């Protein structure tokens, strides 16, 4: 098949969605499909820019390229699914969340003015129209599918995908707890820092970079964590695999995350995951006292849970192995077979 994978691109940003789509292209090519990535810059502010940028996707002609038909278009996140094609398959990473569950929170973008309110509704209308015309509608997690259904009434088939390919292995259960994430407020790294402040035996390594880094580093200093909290910044794939291989457990507690590759990566390294009851997608694979621990989003509870894992390393290892079995069930072979069925 000739397949175009569509992805909006925030210039200079590289996260889970970019890794997912890059890998999807590679995996489709590996299975003999002529595949290319179609990407366009995306800027969602100020004001109506979100709509004009979305409209660019509508103007694309992906029926054919260079005189040859494109059989399938796979769109992934807003606004790439506005593209027109007779066989548009949407593998939904997420909608434009500022127009939905993030509206009215500190992570929202639309004010209470009539123009901003109408703008938000226009985004919702675009979703209903563009997702409604897809020939197949998949979501990367139940959480994303549920949000879609409650916001648009559309039903998506849940189709998870494996995480990025790294040299996953389990070497040891050392004393440190690992956080792997872009450093922004929604990822709640501050809860981990506050937990470390309450448990002098807790060491943390924070991998990743982002706009919240300065605040988090300041918070760590203020809490006197020097030496017990290491900000590793953006690490290489080799370094990341090494951190996974050696950590005691992985902390992952974003607010209502779409899916979360980090728990799957942790599981592939046989490490348990600590998450919170409001984390969203991660709860689909992290089960309390089976593949990790699930607690309320409270620094005291998090400190207690991580302390328990430190004191119960056999259980920690057992949770990690159980998680490994879950992660190994999610393969590209299965995902692509369903995507192209």
């Amino acid at each position: 098949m000739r397949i175009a994978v569509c992805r909006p691109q925030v210039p200079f940003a590289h996260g889970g969605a970019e890794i997912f789509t890059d890998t999807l292209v590679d995996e489709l090519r590996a299975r003999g499909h002529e595949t290319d990535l179609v990407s366009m810059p995306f800027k969602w502010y100020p004001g109506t820019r979100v709509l004009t940028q979305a409209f660019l996707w509508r103007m694309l002609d992906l029926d054919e390229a260079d005189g040859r038909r494109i059989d399938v278009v796979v769109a992934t996140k807003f606004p790439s699914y506005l593209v027109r094609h007779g066989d548009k398959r949407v593998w939904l990473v997420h909608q434009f969340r500022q127009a939905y569950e993030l509206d009215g929170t500190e992570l929202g973008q639309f004010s209470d003015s009539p123009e901003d309110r109408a703008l938000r509704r226009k985004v919702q209308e675009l979703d209903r129209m563009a997702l409604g015309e897809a020939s197949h509608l998949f979501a990367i997690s139940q959480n994303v599918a549920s949000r879609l259904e409650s916001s648009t009434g559309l039903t998506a088939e849940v189709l998870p995908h494996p995480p990025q390919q790294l040299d996953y292995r389990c070497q040891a259960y050392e004393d440190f707890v690992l956080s792997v994430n872009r450093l922004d407020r929604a990822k709640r790294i501050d809860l981990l820092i506050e937990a470390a402040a309450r448990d002098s035996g807790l060491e943390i390594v924070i991998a990743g970079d982002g706009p919240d880094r300065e605040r988090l580093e300041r918070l760590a200093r203020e809490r006197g964590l020097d030496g017990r909290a290491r900000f590793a910044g953006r690490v290489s794939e080799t370094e990341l695999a090494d951190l996974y291989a050696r950590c005691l457990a992985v902390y992952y507690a974003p607010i209502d995350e779409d899916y979360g590759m980090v728990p799957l990566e942790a599981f592939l390294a046989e490490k348990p995951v600590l998450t919170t009851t409001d984390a969203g997608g991660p709860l689909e694979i992290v089960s309390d006292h089976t593949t990790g621990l699930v607690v309320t989003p409270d620094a005291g509870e998090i400190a207690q849970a991580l302390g328990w894992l430190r004191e119960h390393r056999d259980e920690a290892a057992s949770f990690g192995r159980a998680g490994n079995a879950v992660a190994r069930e999610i393969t590209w072979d299965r995902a692509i077979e369903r995507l192209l069925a």
Partner: protein
Amino acid sequence: MRVAYFSPMPPEQTGIADYSALLLPELRKRLDVHVVRRGAKKRPRGMDVALYHVGNNPGAHAWIVDALRREPGVVVLHDFVLHHLVAGMTLARRDRDGYLDILEREHGVVGRLLAHGVIEKRIPSLWESRAADFPLATFVLEHATALVVHSRYVRDQARAAGFEGQITVVPHPAWPPPRAEPDRVSDGVVIGCFGVVNASKRIPALLRATAAVRREHPEVTLLLVGPTSPGFDLERRLQRLGLSGAGLVREGWVDELRLWRLMAGSDILVNLRHPTMGETSGSVIRGLSLGKPLVVSDVGWFAELSGDVALKIAPDDLEVDTLTAALELLATRRDVRDAMGIAAREVARRDHDVGRVAELYASALERAAGGDSVDDTVLRDVSGAAAGVGISANTAEAREIARRLAEVELG
């Protein structure tokens, strides 16, 4: 966003007052809603948008339409046929010219002549005899900036009447059934019919069909609840069909709780209507909440109910025969009743949930208040970019851009 909310409110005894009482708590979770006191001439200051609930009853809605005609806004069109309202706002106010002008504007010289006939009492009042032929909705539509309607039927009627603005179809919200014991009026199968008893509710057809069903199934009882319209000879019809004794239980006006209990105690709910004024039925919505199998007329909003929850009867020459077959099927097949009941509850939960309804209202109001400004900005950006690369108006490229914008309802 601040919304001026014009509606009859309890203790006024109208369906729309009950409707607003149900909707408002959920709507207030989403918007800053100010209910305008009855009789106010204008919206309060500082509002972003006004919402006007309009129905056909002049006693409940004339003041609201007066306010609408002073300041346009979003109209909830509960009925499409507004002739009775218009008559109440013109003839009842001794404004004969107003009535004549409206009839002429909507229906030409013939309309004006008919209006003269009504005024001079040479022909029966059109709002009672032929309202569906002369709906007079333009009286309201011309002042609406956007519409909220409860059915695709009314949406299509409004479009046909020339309304070009935004129309949002918002289902009628479902009341949660009260916790009360069902009131069963018979041990056998009970067919319940709730609402005003008159010819437009197809009561003559229902009586004849019930009598026919009872010939084979005397255990079936018809429960008729609601006041009888003046001039409707119910007693004589019952006697003629042998329904005056066994087989019929008659209740007049009942309070809300008793209404629910009697509905809950019915096995089948019948709600027929012809002609339709484009209205929805609170009884049908209650029936869905209760999980009752429904029999309705195949007209207007009723025709849009899923076949899983309602058997639909065309109001034609075969109406009595079709209705008889439908009632017989439901009276004798408990499995069918149960399946339709389960589907009805699901429809009430999925489509008529008051939270979902409030969300649709909020969307309609927010789009109405700020949508034009958003559209203008998008159009300016897109046309500016097009002009920047040399695409001028009335070229194939400009038409292509316009077509794509229309596809996604931008601009």
